[in-house]
């Protein structure tokens, strides 16, 4: 670039037009290339004859050599062979004794031979140089294209990076907003609820003697609904907390975890007959308290929906996959209609009436959210009155550990 500037604009223009000419000749058809060869030899011959006329002797051979060099350089090896043949013929006819005949005297034969050989060697050298130069030029052009592409790609990456950073900032903002929203819900929504409950309670106490049966029932409904709303708020907060708290991943052995949860549930099941079938379970990689919540939710669901069975059967087992394990919880309870299976894991989605089974409809949504955060999937199978099987998959301990190590 610098040298171009130093040469000035005319230098650049000449060089460009030469290059264009060069390319045009190279790409031209055989007629142009061989024609160029004939013209060059003719020019060399003309010049040699003119110089001979002015008594300059023995310049014809270098002139023919020069013509051959030019021809090889610009139009390639085929025309240069023609040029060698033509030059030899011209030299023989115009300059070698006897002049104006193609006869070759015995003593001139070595000279012819030498000329042809030297011309061929020159042509060969030039051709090789030409090829090397072409290779170099191609390589340079390729490099240039690659550099340009790389630059474009770099620009693109930079642009994408900027966009990503912007998106991350937006996400952080909305995350913060969400957090303060959850905080407000936690604090501000509970206060008025506490007042509703508190004052209803006070009113009931104050006026219990003057209230008739119907009013007392109204009062009771207010209290129960408020309590239910309190539970909903608590569940919703717990649900939103899953997304906000950081997971502390370790190796978690599911066997003791399940036993622990079963023991906890059995404290509340009283005299119900429940047959637990617990198969050996694997070691997973995840947040222990969150996985405990998953198992607690699934098992208490199973206990809840088998309430009407004389003997409830709850089975916990796993299916070993290549990269993940799938744990299932199967019960012989109320089941559900497979038609609505996609609603099963939604927030506040319930497939049963509140009189049949209590609940806020957030348990399975919580399960799904936790499992998704662990990189797993949830699914369910069941039929009305035929029990339900809920599955969740988790990456295998080894896989998960590797994945975490890679992302760090």
């Amino acid at each position: 670039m610098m040298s171009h500037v130093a040469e000035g604009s005319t230098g650049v223009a000449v060089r460009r037009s030469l290059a264009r000419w060069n390319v045009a000749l190279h790409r031209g058809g055989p007629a142009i290339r061989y024609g160029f060869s004939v013209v060059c030899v003719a020019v060399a011959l003309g010049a040699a004859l003119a110089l001979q006329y002015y008594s300059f002797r023995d310049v014809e051979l270098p002139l023919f050599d020069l013509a051959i060099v030019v021809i090889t350089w610009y139009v390639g090896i085929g025309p240069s062979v023609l040029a060698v043949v033509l030059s030899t013929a011209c030299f023989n006819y115009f300059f070698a004794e006897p002049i104006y005949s193609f006869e070759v005297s015995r003593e001139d034969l070595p000279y012819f031979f030498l000329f042809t050989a030297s011309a061929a060697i020159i042509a060969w050298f030039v051709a090789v140089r030409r090829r090397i130069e072409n290779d170099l030029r191609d390589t340079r052009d390729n490099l240039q294209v690659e550099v340009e592409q790389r630059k474009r790609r770099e620009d693109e990456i930079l642009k994408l990076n900027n966009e990503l950073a912007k998106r991350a900032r937006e996400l952080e903002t909305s995350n913060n907003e969400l957090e303060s929203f959850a905080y407000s819900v936690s604090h501000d929504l509970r206060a008025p609820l506490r007042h509703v409950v508190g004052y209803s309670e006070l009113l009931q106490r104050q006026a219990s003697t003057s209230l008739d049966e119907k009013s007392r029932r109204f009062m009771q409904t207010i209290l129960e609904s408020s309590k239910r709303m309190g539970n909903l708020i608590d569940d919703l907060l717990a649900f939103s907390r899953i997304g906000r708290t950081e997971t502390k991943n370790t190796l978690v052995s599911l066997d003791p975890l399940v036993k622990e949860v079963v023991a906890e549930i059995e404290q509340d099941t009283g005299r119900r007959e429940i047959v637990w079938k617990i198969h050996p379970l694997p070691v997973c990689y995840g947040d222990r308290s969150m996985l405990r919540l998953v198992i607690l939710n699934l098992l208490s669901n199973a206990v809840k929906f088998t309430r009407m069975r004389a003997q409830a059967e709850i089975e916990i087992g796993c299916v070993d996959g290549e990269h993940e394990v799938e744990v299932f919880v199967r019960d012989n309870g109320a089941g559900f209609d497979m038609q609505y299976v996609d609603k099963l894991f939604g927030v506040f989605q319930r497939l049963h009436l509140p009189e049949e089974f209590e609940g806020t409809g957030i348990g399975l949504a919580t399960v799904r959210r936790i499992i998704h955060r662990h990189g797993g999937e949830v699914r369910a199978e069941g039929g009305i009155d035929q029990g339900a099987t809920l599955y969740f998959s988790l990456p295998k301990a080894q896989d998960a550990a590797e994945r975490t190590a890679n992302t760090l």
Partner: protein
Amino acid sequence: MSELARILLVEDDPRDVELTLTALGEYNLANEVVIARDGEKALDYLYYRGEFSTRSNDNPAVMLLDLKLPKIDGLQVLQQIKADERLKLIPVVVLTSSREEKDMVRSYKLGVNAYVVKPVDFHEFVNAIKELGVFWAVINEPPPGSVKKAP
């Protein structure tokens, strides 16, 4: 009333104040309460400023502190109390609607003496307040310089 205040209740919501006083009333502790409706008032009380400039010279036996308050919030009040040599001995009980771990951790780091989440259920609420009042104002022996129990 401010003469014999063993309990300093910092609470902005008048209904919560009434419910709390009702609960404390069941143990005849309602008369021992002085109420500050925001963080600034609470600090005014502790530093004998403004309307409290003429109050008696003792610290409350316990301070029940809400976290979400106008002007100066509960955590700021807590921080200031625990940073002050003369006030850091006052037992402070955070009494709040927030079950957020963030709030709990910050409160404990600032040296709170207890953290109580106001239960939504009225009976549980009354019980919690009663037990708090009885423990801190009657059973617990407050640090020297606090209001003495009525004989």
